[in-house]
């Protein structure tokens, strides 16, 4: 892999957002992943979401572990600080980073090996702590960089490219995220940009632990007949629960929908999520129902996608810890160091 910057020549008419940035300002160097990799579509969706939300690129910190998915933060948001940490440990690094400065947006990108195998513990604990971040798992069911071994999200009975049949039960990260208290849980598909972009936007606005399991087929090692993470298989079995039209206050949706099919969720920061429900009985604010529903549909062989659960008033890790409003990394001697007189008192108490 080499470092290939993109040419800086932009079309003069390129659309600008409210901050004066073009879409290109949210891109990174050229991706070195395989042509057609689902992960590149997710990177593109992240670029579009940040552009559309008028997020200043430098206010995002992007973090990842190790693996194909974890390489992607290089390929988007080139003006953001990034951190490619160690395998399976992105959640702890993101947790610490978030503790240091609550004002940045934290975007963690991981894979199914990184989060469901080696990093399952860290994934779980970041969710249960409510770290305010967007946690995307680019889920392809295989280890790509080491050439096609099954991962822990591979379905039982799925066939590898070399013809092996997976005999282990899969780990369902969405089910775990729901159970562990994530306050925003979604599943999407890298091949469905119309669904994915608004989901990422809503997650970026969410002030708590937002998890997106994004099925992202591996064109090199898991896109064959017998795979349950191939483009064809996912398209065939995708059961979209809802379509999310994210409204950040500037573009109202004016299309009329049948009564009972439209649901509006106002998030804590005032951002509004408008959901077009495809299953009218589904309540997106009911965690327990979501868990049951997901189990039922999975048993039927469906891959349910969409926004599965959202808590409109989440509490994040900082709220639990009751930290000051000012970022901890901005605090200086005056509040941090108690000083000589206080130390004298401590000494006196130790005699």
């Amino acid at each position, binding site marked *: 892999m080499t470092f290939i910057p993109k040419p800086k020549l932009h079309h003069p008419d390129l659309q600008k957002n409210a901050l004066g940035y073009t879409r290109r300002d949210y891109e990174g160097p050229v991706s070195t992943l395989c042509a057609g990799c689902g992960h590149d579509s997710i990177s593109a969706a992240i670029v579009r979401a940040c552009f559309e939300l008028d997020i200043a690129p430098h206010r995002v910190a992007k973090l990842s572990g190790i693996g194909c998915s974890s390489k992607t933060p290089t390929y988007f948001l080139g003006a953001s600080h990034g951190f490619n*940490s160690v395998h399976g440990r992105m959640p702890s*690094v993101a947790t610490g*980073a978030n503790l240091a400065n609550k004002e940045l947006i934290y975007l963690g990108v991981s894979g199914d090996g990184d989060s469901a195998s080696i990093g399952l513990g860290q994934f779980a604990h970041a969710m249960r702590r409510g770290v305010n971040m967007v946690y995307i798992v680019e889920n392809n069911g295989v280890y790509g960089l080491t050439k096609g071994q099954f991962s822990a999200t591979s379905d039982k009975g799925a066939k590898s490219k070399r013809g092996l049949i997976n005999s282990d039960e899969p780990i369902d990260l969405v089910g775990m995220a729901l159970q562990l208290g994530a306050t925003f849980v979604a599943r999407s598909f890298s091949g469905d940009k119309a669904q994915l972009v608004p989901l990422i936007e809503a997650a970026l606005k969410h002030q708590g632990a937002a998890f997106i399991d994004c099925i992202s087929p591996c064109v090199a090692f898991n896109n064959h007949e017998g795979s349950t993470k191939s483009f064809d298989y996912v398209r065939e079995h995708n059961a979209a629960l809802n379509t999310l039209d994210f409204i950040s206050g500037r573009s109202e949706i004016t299309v009329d929908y049948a009564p009972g099919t439209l649901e509006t969720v106002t998030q804590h920061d005032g951002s509004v999520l408008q959901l077009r429900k495809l299953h009218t009985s589904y309540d997106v604010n009911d965690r327990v129902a979501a868990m049951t529903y997901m189990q039922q549909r999975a048993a039927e062989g469906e891959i349910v996608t969409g926004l599965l659960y959202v808590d409109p008033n989440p509490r994040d890790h900082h709220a639990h*810890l009751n930290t*000051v409003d000012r970022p*901890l990394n901005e605090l200086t001697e005056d509040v941090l160091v108690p000083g000589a007189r206080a*130390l004298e008192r401590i000494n006196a108490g130790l005699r």
Partner: protein
Amino acid sequence: MLQVVDRIEGLQRVNEFVVKFANVNGSGSASANALFAKSVLRMGISATPRNIFPSNIQGLPTWYEVRISDAGYLGARGGGPDLMVAMNPQTWDSDVKGIEPGGYLFYDNTKPMPSSKFRDDITVVGVPLTRMTNEAYSNPRQRQLFKNIVGLGALAALLDMDVPCVEELLGEQFKGRDKLIEANVQALHMGLDWVKANLGDPVGLKLRKANSVGDRIFIDGNSAAALGAVYGGATVCAWYPITPSSSVAEAFTSYCNRMRVDKATGKKNFAIVQAEDELSSIGMVIGAAWNGARSFTATSGPGVSLMSEFVGLAYFAEIPAVIMDVQRSGPSTGMPTRTQQTDLTICAYASHGDTKHVMLIPEDPFECFEFGALAFDLADRLQTPIFVMLDLEIGMNDRLTRPFVWDDSRKLDRGKVMTAEQLEAGAKFGRYLDVDDDGITYRTYPGTHPTKGAFFTRGTSKDSMARYSEEGHDYQENMERLLKKHRTAATLVPKAIETKAKQPTAYGAIYFGSTSPAIPEAEEQLAQRGVSLDLLRLRAFPFGPEVEAFIDAHKTVFVIEQNRDGQMRSLLINELEIDPKKLAKVVHYDGTPITARFISGAIAKHLNIQ
């Protein structure tokens, strides 16, 4: 009921003896024991207590040994106690066996022991503690707790302890709860009066008010290190419970809750997270430090093993981190409640690939505080992990130590951090560009500037502009620069301290950390045998030039340490390319603190001196 006191010629000592309490874990003895030690200190006499405890919460034997030494020896004396307070039937036989010849045995003789359970060469003092407390109290918990105080009263009478000092301490301990003070004072006098009325003066060990304590304070190293972290400006602490380090994070929590809460809002100027494991705690520390907050973790050997991968990342990607390692005994679980200096090699070279880390090695709580604060300046300045190497002996025992000092003009050294203003003014920024030729490069915090100064932090190799690179020369230049930075570190860490012998000598001794209090006593013992030693106390790794000069200046240098393999000796040999024959190994590693007797004995043996 009065036990006959055996009359033998017992030891006669004033302010120089060892008292050992044999207790049952969880019986409430700890606070009475501590009260005994503090009372001695309050009388102005130097005393050093040590907890000897199993990895257990309730029911197993524990001991509390207090060395009283007006001469000021703070190291463990070695040998058995002069007075054994035997309150645990489980360990009776070995406790009795351990008493020094001519020593004393104090026990609860509510049920008298047969004389076959004693020894001919000790004095036995029986006091019916259980009977007295059972008669005075009806509540079983009260009986248990007050029995300890009644026992303290009896000891106070036997040793001529200054009773107002004990009463004063009880008043401080239960300040604002007058009823408790009164009840405790009453229990104290119950024991005191009984001894005076019934026993005469059977014990030849006496306490006399003295002036050997001075303005020193009495605190454990873990608390001192935690206080150092507060003064060092730490805002993020991520930790996972492990003996003997847990009380570092707990003390940090309590100091922060006292001194770091915003008065107006009640919100906290700190974040403390009990992580799910050590992998996560060091990950959080690294994430927070990457993002510009001073952060640390506290752990012990097994935790360092788990953290090693991350430590390599922090070394290679150059992220500050402070790791307080309170060392314990052995590989694997080993002896988790016993002391050793056994993580030196793993911390110096933690992680795969070529790595070298900075270690600060405090000798006592004073330096735990000093180095606890300094570690954060060094971590920021050097942008690398800093290990603060405590051990159980320093960390978990209260120790007399110099009072803490702080200079209010001291500023936190945040190291080379490029600001938005500097970037805006056109300063050239390359994350791994060695502009000052000291191996230390500039970094930026995430979110600093809209278009300048962003970079990608990675564990993969990169060029000086932080771009991914697998070019051999990029990798090699980077590794050479890291070595240069390590040499810079050697100029910034606390220097080793040399103490010259009274006369010129060909022999030197190198020691560090919790071995320190045993050294002056060992030196005197050796001087009596005609051996003079120049001494060098290491305080950090990498070694400064003074360490090499010291070794060069001597024919033989004893390296005194508390592990099996002579880990510090190996570091000296490896880093300074010293002829191994020159460095004689003096190692003590049975899990108890090293003693002067052991050191002088080992050195004398090496020199063939009787």
